[in-house]
């Protein structure tokens, strides 16, 4: 049955139909839902493979590799930043190879919808020596995921399944039974140190050669299986022109070329790559053979373009290749039909002007801007920003407020106290009015950076903030480092019990009631205590007087100090608990000083007017009754009321 499925869902169901036995991952937009979908199946009690949110992507990958070494099929999911975390292990397995099908799903984010640097993970496939499939839409994501498992087993290599936000989050009709079809396959692993260890140069060189041989098999498989499509152009013979597309741009190319055809314009020959790496050289050769000009369309880095240019040089091909390296197409950001039209226009425009044949090549310096969209598509003069902020009732707001208030009480100017932030909701402490965090780099980096700042001689206190999931992911080794080297710092762990920013996944610290059946909770406090830190206290972000005292003590203490601010995510509470407390502002008492809003920035607070009087008010639909606004009011105008 055809249903609207996202690219992520399509990947999940394809893996289930291919009999995947183990699915692991670490949440990260835009990859998250691929695992969530299978987790939901498991939690509903339906037949499903083993599924877990692992502590980080490297561990998730290692579990999947272990399963694949034992002959089972496995899927591991992550965003591009996570692929970097797992990279060391991925290269090792790429050189060892696998017996069971192993699909590594990595989602890139061209155009940066979710945050973190733009990264083209196709380059990681080249670095590791892995084949890479890059679907152009959800239906292709389904088809290629199903293909990937068998391919992995035939060639004996993990397969990188790469998608981009536009494919992962788009929804389109996909045909799937949406059921798990487990394979009847025993687990088996034989001892073979020449394959499964890296002990010695002979072993490593042998594995490298085998990796290259397996990659060659992948290219042969793409050809034999007809994964990539080659279409003839309307201009035959040596004067023809062609396009090469890879991944999501294939869909936009198809649209643009259909329009050209309808308008009676000449249509180029096309090579549409979905199995992108290793480059299927035979088909590229065929295309080059029929063309004098070829434009390569791909988002981000000129990966395919470089491969094609290199092949053309080896072949002694005399035509011209257009793409990013000559500035015709952009290397930054997401592509839509607009970039395709601009690239095609760069081919056409000078030809029309000179009355030459339509496939005559544009001057290489022709920039995208020349063929760009009409000026009326520039943004209007009035643009509005909706900065992201802590939700109403977010406990992190209370933790940062307590930090800011403690610094104030200790007469430490906020502008001079460096607070390193970390990945996840906790980084929203960088935005006004909290304005605490100075840096955000990578998972767990708040701790390493703070130690670097301390060793460089920046003034103390040096404060690092990190969420619970990020602490487990990469904060633990960094904290161990600070303890070992006795590097003084204050670490604030904002523990809301969930991996919230990606949509409320469990992590090792989540309450046992929310964990998968049979899983346990790992106590952050016990872990930190076992490291032997110099100071460890807990606080409740909504008990401000006590929380401020804890912060003051931590800042004034010596050595490695850790504060655990504990309170569950307001959104997960709201999902379970329907009754809630409310606060209300007495319009008669409110002096409209706006201290509540200025200090907390809570989205439930707004300015209003009763008669002639301007005053603050609380949106009862948003208020969760945390009471932080009341702690800002000098006039005692804010009180708890019966909901």
């Amino acid at each position, binding site marked *: 049955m055809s249903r*609207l499925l996202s690219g992520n869902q399509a990947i999940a169901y394809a893996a289930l139909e291919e009999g995947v036995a183990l699915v692991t991952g670490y949440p990260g937009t835009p990859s998250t839902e691929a695992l969530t979908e299978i987790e939901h199946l498991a939690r509903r009690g339906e037949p499903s493979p083993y599924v877990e949110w692992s502590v980080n992507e490297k561990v998730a990958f290692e579990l999947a590799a272990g399963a694949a070494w034992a002959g089972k099929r496995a899927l591991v999911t992550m965003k591009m930043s996570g692929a970097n975390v797992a990279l060391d292990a991925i290269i090792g397995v790429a050189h060892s190879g696998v017996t069971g099908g192993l699909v590594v799903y990595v989602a890139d984010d061209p155009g940066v919808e979710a945050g973190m640097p733009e990264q083209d993970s196709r380059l990681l496939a080249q670095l590791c020596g892995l084949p890479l499939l890059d679907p152009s*839409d959800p239906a292709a994501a389904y088809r290629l995921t199903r293909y990937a498992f068998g391919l992995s087993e035939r060639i004996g290599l993990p397969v990188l399944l790469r998608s981009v936000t536009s494919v992962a989050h788009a929804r*389109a009709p996909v045909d799937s039974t949406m059921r798990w079809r487990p394979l009847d396959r025993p687990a088996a692993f034989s001892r073979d140190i020449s394959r499964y260890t890296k002990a010695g140069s002979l072993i490593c060189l042998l594995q490298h050669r085998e990796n290259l041989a397996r990659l060659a098999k992948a290219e042969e498989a793409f050809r034999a299986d007809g994964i990539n499509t080659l279409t003839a152009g309307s201009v035959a013979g040596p004067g023809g022109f062609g396009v090469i597309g890879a991944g999501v741009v294939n*869909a936009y190319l198809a649209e643009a070329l259909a329009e050209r055809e309808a308008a009676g314009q000449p249509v180029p020959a096309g090579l549409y790559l979905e199995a992108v790496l290793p480059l299927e050289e035979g088909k590229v050769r065929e295309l080059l053979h029929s063309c004098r000009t070829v434009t390569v369309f791909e988002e981000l880095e000129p990966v395919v373009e470089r491969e094609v240019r290199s092949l053309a040089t080896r072949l002694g091909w005399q035509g011209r290749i257009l793409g990013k390296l000559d500035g015709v197409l952009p290397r930054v950001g997401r592509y839509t039909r607009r970039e395709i039209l601009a690239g095609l226009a760069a081919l056409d425009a000078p030809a029309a002007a000179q009355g030459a044949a339509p496939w005559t090549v544009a001057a290489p310096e022709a920039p995208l801007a020349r063929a760009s969209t009409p000026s009326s598509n520039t943004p209007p003069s009035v643009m509005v920003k909706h900065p992201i902020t802590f*939700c109403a009732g977010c406990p992190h707001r209370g933790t940062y407020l307590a930090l800011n208030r403690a610094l104030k009480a200790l007469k430490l100017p906020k502008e001079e106290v460096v607070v390193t932030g970390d990945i996840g909701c906790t980084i929203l402490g960088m935005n006004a*009015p909290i304005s605490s965090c100075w840096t955000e780099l990578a998972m767990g980096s708040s701790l390493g950076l703070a130690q670097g700042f301390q060793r460089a001689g920046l003034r103390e206190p040096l404060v690092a903030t990190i969420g619970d999931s990020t602490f487990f992911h990469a904060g633990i080794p960094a904290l161990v480092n600070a303890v070992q080297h006795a590097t003084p710092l204050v670490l604030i762990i904002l523990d809301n019990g969930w991996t919230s920013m990606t949509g409320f996944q469990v992590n090792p610290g989540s309450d046992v009631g929310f964990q998968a059946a049979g899983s346990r909770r790992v106590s952050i406090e016990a872990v930190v205590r076992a490291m032997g830190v110099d100071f460890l206290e807990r606080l409740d972000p909504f008990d401000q007087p006590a929380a401020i005292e804890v912060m003051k003590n931590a800042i004034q203490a010596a050595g490695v100090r850790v504060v655990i601010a504990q309170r569950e995510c307001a959104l997960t509470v709201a999902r379970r608990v329907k009754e809630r407390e409310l606060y209300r502002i007495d319009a008669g008492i409110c002096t409209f000083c706006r201290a509540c809003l200025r200090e907390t920035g809570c989205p439930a607070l707004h300015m209003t007017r009763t008669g002639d009087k301007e005053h603050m008010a609380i949106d009862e639909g948003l208020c969760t009754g945390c009471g932080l606004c009341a702690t800002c009011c000098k006039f005692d105008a804010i009180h708890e009321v019966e909901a």
Partner: protein
Amino acid sequence: MNILITGVGGQGTVTLGDLIAERAMGLGLPVSVYHSRGMAHRGGRVAGEIRIASRPGERLGPRLSPGGADVLVGMEIGETINSLPFLKEDGVALLIDYRYVPSEAALKKEAYPDLEKARELFSRRTPRVFSVVRPPAPVNLFALGCLAALLPGEMDPQGIFNPEGLEDTIRRHLKKNTEGNLEVFRKGYVHGRQG
């Protein structure tokens, strides 16, 4: 047909987009739906891009390009204005009079655009600007009703926005409060008929 729906979290933009997509899918047309909503809980922008091909078998890329939307449903004034470059000249703009003013802008007393400002900006681009003031809840179904009345036949030759067809889709996909939703949809239709 390309439809862009914008707003802030909690306004039902996702449901609105999905209803339109389901209706088109029921007619056998290729569809693609893309919702940007990652930061919706945290006060961020929400946008739905619904693309519907005119014939079976046609391919669709997932995302809209500037100047590519035939229809814009703007559910929050600020985000509506931000989306202006995506509307085709002569496209249909449905502006809903709701403002979500970020607290920083409010504290600094920065000007935040209103419906009048939005109408002025959109009128320079298209004569087909329609607005809705104080619609009944749920706003998304009211907007859908408006669209059913507003889209001229030449823009919708497949009858995606045929009111009976949409009512059928609502019945099939909104199992909770179906009658209430239908009532609001019909009110929107009446509002749309009045222009």
